[in-house]
């Protein structure tokens, strides 16, 4: 275990700090990069040999790249639209999920009363309620945001609630002994100790929000003048343009990944000095 108190133990051993840094970055990114190369290689091999004359089933990677480049402005604007919807749905899910988690953590009765409905929000088949959502919110981005919200809210609510309820018993006793008010106990104890749980939920929901936005677009269709990635996917499917379809799938995947990375980054900033999950330089 390395400690700031014994900082000499964790100082880079290499002569130059710059070299040491480059070395550390290489060690961190080389393994996934290698997996990427192997994956693309395998895909290329398959696309050229087995699907050599059926590339509408499995396009060649460079054709996908070319399609993405040719349609870049469309692809970009669709990605921006989907990003906006996913971000709005995710933001709404954070707000509502955390507020309800805080409310439910205040009394067992509230938790028992509300929790089943939170679960139902998760279990309701989104495709089945989609017509109702469209009926209420119209063929527009608002409906998409609602779908993204519905898919993303439960993990946030559930994990935040779990975090708020798993405060260490002795810590609660300590606060009680020194007559801390409920508000103080919440601010100084329950909330900070819930942070790791909150971010576990946020990481799951980040990807789900993007999926929700695309599912929403898929359901609502091309109602508006411009569509996000979900709408573009329908178009590409209709034209049997597999190259573009693949490019859109890659864009959607990267978008979800970006969300995840952003959330993880914020979590790391908040927890890096004290929580095991956020510590890197442990040897």
């Amino acid at each position, binding site marked *: *275990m390395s*400690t*700031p*108190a014994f900082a000499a133990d964790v100082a880079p051993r290499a002569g130059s700090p710059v070299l040491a840094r480059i070395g550390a970055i290489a060690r961190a990114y080389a393994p996934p990069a290698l997996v990427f190369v192997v994956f693309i290689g395998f895909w290329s091999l398959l696309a050229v040999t087995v699907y050599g004359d059926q590339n509408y089933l499995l396009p060649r990677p460079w054709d996908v790249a070319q399609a993405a480049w040719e349609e870049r402005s469309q692809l970009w604007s669709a990605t921006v639209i989907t990003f906006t919807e996913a971000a709005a749905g995710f933001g709404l899910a954070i707000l509502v999920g955390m507020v309800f988690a805080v409310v439910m953590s205040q*009394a*067992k*009765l509230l938790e028992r009363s509300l929790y089943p409905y939170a679960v139902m929000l998760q279990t309701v088949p989104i495709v089945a309620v989609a017509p109702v959502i469209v009926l209420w919110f119209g063929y527009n981005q608002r409906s998409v945001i609602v779908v993204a919200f519905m898919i993303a809210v439960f993990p946030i609510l559930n994990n935040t609630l779990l975090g708020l*309820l*798993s405060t*260490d*018993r*002795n*810590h*609660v*006793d*300590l*606060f*009680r*002994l*020194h*007559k*801390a008010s409920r508000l*103080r106990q919440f601010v*100084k*104890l329950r909330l*900070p*100790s819930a*942070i790791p749980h909150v971010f576990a939920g946020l990481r799951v929901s980040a990807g789900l929000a993007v999926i929700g936005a695309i599912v929403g677009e898929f359901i609502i269709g091309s109602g508006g003048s411009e569509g996000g990635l979900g709408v573009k996917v329908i178009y590409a499917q209709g034209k049997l343009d597999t190259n573009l379809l693949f490019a859109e799938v890659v864009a959607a995947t990267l978008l979800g990944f970006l969300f995840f990375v952003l959330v993880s980054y914020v979590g790391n900033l908040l*927890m890096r*000095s*004290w*929580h*095991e999950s956020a*510590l890197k330089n442990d040897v």
Partner: protein
Amino acid sequence: MPMTSAERAEKPPTVTAPTDGGGIHVRSVSKVFPNGTTALEPTDLAVGEGQFVSIVGPSGCGKSTLLRIIAGLTPATTGECSMPTGSRRAFVFQDATLLPWRTVRKNAQLLLELEGFDKAERERRAAEALKLVSLEGFEKVYPRNLSGGMKMRLSLARALGLQPKLFLMDEPFSALDELTRETLQDELLRIWSSEGFTALFVTHNLYEAVYLSSRVVVMSARPGRIVADIDVPLPYPRTPDIRQAPEFNEVSAKVSAALRGGAVQ
């Protein structure tokens, strides 16, 4: 573990009446748990001001329950505890109960924050307390980077910052290795003699109890009760070589006999 609504509603329980002298007076305090188990039979205990008293006993003898009742953490079923009005109590748990997101410095200030001390006073007292437990220089470190012994030192410092009149400790050293435990025992004695608080120390280690205290209260289980109250006629300040003294072994044998006697019944 989630709390039940009954626990959430619980009020600080024990009637605390003022007494003339210092110290603690426990009068026929008992505890019966809601499921009907008697954790503690009606118990009387008096601890003089500035005394160091240990409570030893097997697990389930109600020693921790008694300590928690005195601290005001658990309501007593009957009886009452009294201590001087306005006397500050500090409680040290078996586990260091540090807040992992706070640095050593901020952890040392936690109870002072809760008790409403202003910033300057918090800084001053916390720094003083950290010095008392030899943790100066570690202010910016987070608890996860501290050893078990250092965590417990910090836990002691956090309580000492309050300048308590009454120091309640619930098996604080039981999770530590032998060597660290003995070092901390000596440090605790040194701090006790300089600060002059009343100490009530719960342990299951009879040698620890004898080494630290001027009096050892022996408890027994099923039902929890006090079976012996043994004086330790060894002078302070105590040093590790006292463990080889014949008086030390004599008292230890007495405590041990009381513990076994209690277990047989």
